């Protein structure tokens, strides 16, 4: 999936189009800017493209927009921190001044010496003025509204345009019954031009109204969904508190209950959850929670990168689970777990601070380490090693190659 197309305020030079495109296409901004620049000599294609995106793409942070589009059930409940560095829209003000200057120049030119290219300037001013008016549509999904404004299907668009043209013709014929044909045509063109100009400038306000209505409706639906989740959470906290009170005499039980509840609350409040079955990191965290709950030992878990689980990573997780259980049962806390999804391989480190043991001392009939950890990973083409030193505890290192084309996700 890609980030939605937005014009971010951060890192922009003019309108933020290239930054937004870069984020959307996952390309470096410099490349996008270069391509835009190289396209300019071709009949101003780069410039036109830029203006088009400027007009149609709404302002906003792509990441934030992606976050807002997530289903409420998968998003974190806690409010996101707002970026405190809000700047004055200097570029917008500058552009406005530039436009005023152009308009003043135009008036001066009109008053003084008539210049041949005078039609270029009004065209530019009109274009820029329209762009400015459209830029009012902050944070609106303009693209969506553009496609909706005229109707959802080609047929309804055709109907709308046809109807407008017919009605206009009818009015024109009614009003100018006795006029000669060429005068009628001329006034028709003038009327249409004025109407089109007015519509072009006023459209953003109308679209904004429509948008606010839609956004409000969506926000209400989201709010009620979040209220349901919050109610469920409060309920589960109450249950846990009741259980803790009932078992107040057993400190181990109380600690276990508190830890489990804390983990659940934390993930609902501060994490954006993934769709089940798409994230190795989420599966690992679930496994860690299970081990923590059953053995009442906290595990410091760090995950770098993520990928979609497959049969290989399932075996790796099984081995990790065994290693973790070993560390929790035979080692001493703190127990650390580190998973890294790198180029073409997944690595897992499980470490405890126990006295350590010597693998050669482990009897051959003990299945634990040899079979369930090392054997599992080796059968999948990976490597496994156990380092154990009395002063530094034991560390199990598992490494599994992944298929790059189906593996690496982000």
């Amino acid at each position, binding site marked *: 999936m890609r980030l939605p197309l937005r014009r971010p305020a951060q890192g922009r030079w003019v309108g933020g189009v290239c930054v937004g495109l870069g984020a959307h296409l996952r390309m470096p901004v410099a490349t996008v800017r270069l391509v835009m620049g190289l396209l300019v000599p071709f009949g101003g294609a780069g410039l036109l493209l830029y203006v088009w995106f400027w007009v149609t793409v709404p302002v906003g942070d792509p*990441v934030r927009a992606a976050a807002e589009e997530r289903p409420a059930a998968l998003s974190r409940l806690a409010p996101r*921190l*707002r970026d*405190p560095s809000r700047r004055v829209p200097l570029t917008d003000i500058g552009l406005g001044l530039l436009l005023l200057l152009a308009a003043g120049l135009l008036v001066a030119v009109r008053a003084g010496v008539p210049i041949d290219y005078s039609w270029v300037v009004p065209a530019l001013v009109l274009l820029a003025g329209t762009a400015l008016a459209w830029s009012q549509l902050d944070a609106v999904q303009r693209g969506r509204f553009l496609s909706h404004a005229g109707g959802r299907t080609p047929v309804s668009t055709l109907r709308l345009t046809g109807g407008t043209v017919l009605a206009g013709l009818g009015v024109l014929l009614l009003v100018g019954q006795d006029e000669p044909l060429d005068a009628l045509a001329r006034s028709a063109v003038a009327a249409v031009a004025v109407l089109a100009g007015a519509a072009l400038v006023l459209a953003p306000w109308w679209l904004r109204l429509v948008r606010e209505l839609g956004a409000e409706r969506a926000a209400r639906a989201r709010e009620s969904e979040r209220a349901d989740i919050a109610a469920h959470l409060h309920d589960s906290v109450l249950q846990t508190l009741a259980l803790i009170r009932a078992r107040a005499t057993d400190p181990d039980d109380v600690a276990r209950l508190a830890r489990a509840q804390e983990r659940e609350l934390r993930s609902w409040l501060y*994490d954006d*959850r993934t769709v089940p079955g798409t994230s190795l990191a989420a599966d690992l965290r679930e496994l860690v929670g299970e081990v923590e709950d059953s053995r009442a030992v906290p595990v410091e878990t*760090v*995950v770098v990168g993520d990928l979609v689980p497959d049969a290989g990573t399932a075996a790796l997780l099984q081995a990790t689970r065994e290693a973790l259980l070993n560390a929790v049962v035979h080692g001493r806390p703190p127990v650390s777990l*580190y998973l890294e*999804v790198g180029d073409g391989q997944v690595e897992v480190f499980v470490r405890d601070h126990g006295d350590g043991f010597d693998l050669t001392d482990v009897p051959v009939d003990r299945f634990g380490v040899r079979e369930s950890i090392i054997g599992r990973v080796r059968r999948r083409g990976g490597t496994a090693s156990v380092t154990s030193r009395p002063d530094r505890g034991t560390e199990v290192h598992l490494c599994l190659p992944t298929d790059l084309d189906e593996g690496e996700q982000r």
Partner: protein
Amino acid sequence: MSEDRVDVVLVDDHLMFRAGVRASLDGSIHVVGEADDVDAAITLVRALQPPVVVLDVHLPGGAGGGGAEVITACADLLTTTRFLALSVSDSAEDVVAVIRAGARGYVTKAITGPDLSDAVRRVAGGDAVFSPRLAGFVLDAFGAAAGDVATGDDELDRLSAREREVMRLIARGYSYREVAGELFISIKTVETHVSAVLRKLQLSSRHELTRWAAARRLL
């Protein structure tokens, strides 16, 4: 260093938690002031200018920027007043936001009293405090792949090979002392590497870095 008295301002919106932290800090650390929202915190820190401010990532008030907003508003004091972020949230976007605003370290609220006191002293001494979790975020942000390696010290957008090694060991749960032993370097050198990484995390203009924090779990 541990003999020196360290004055601390505590910023958290939960009264019970502030009381707990105050009780768990050891004798050499004195809580000279407390605040419970963004605006009060900014006023208090500006008035007292303590060597260390321990602050929560999530705070009510202000413009909604939480702890990061407090640090940004006190940016001119950063040479004398150091910020240590304390958070119940493990989310990368929250943690990276306060670090990028200028915090010298980040610890979770589950931290023990002695560890927190130690972290406060370390921050007061100008060092960076990296939890395994923060090291993981750094590796995520700068890319864990081994090929993308900085060649010069002035390069802000990539980690050097050594810095990456140090980060990986910290993420694996190694203490600074254990990292030093594993890599055959001094603890001082480990601290230098960690401070360099913190600086990169704060100053890097790497485009993905700002986007990354939130995007990580979204797509």
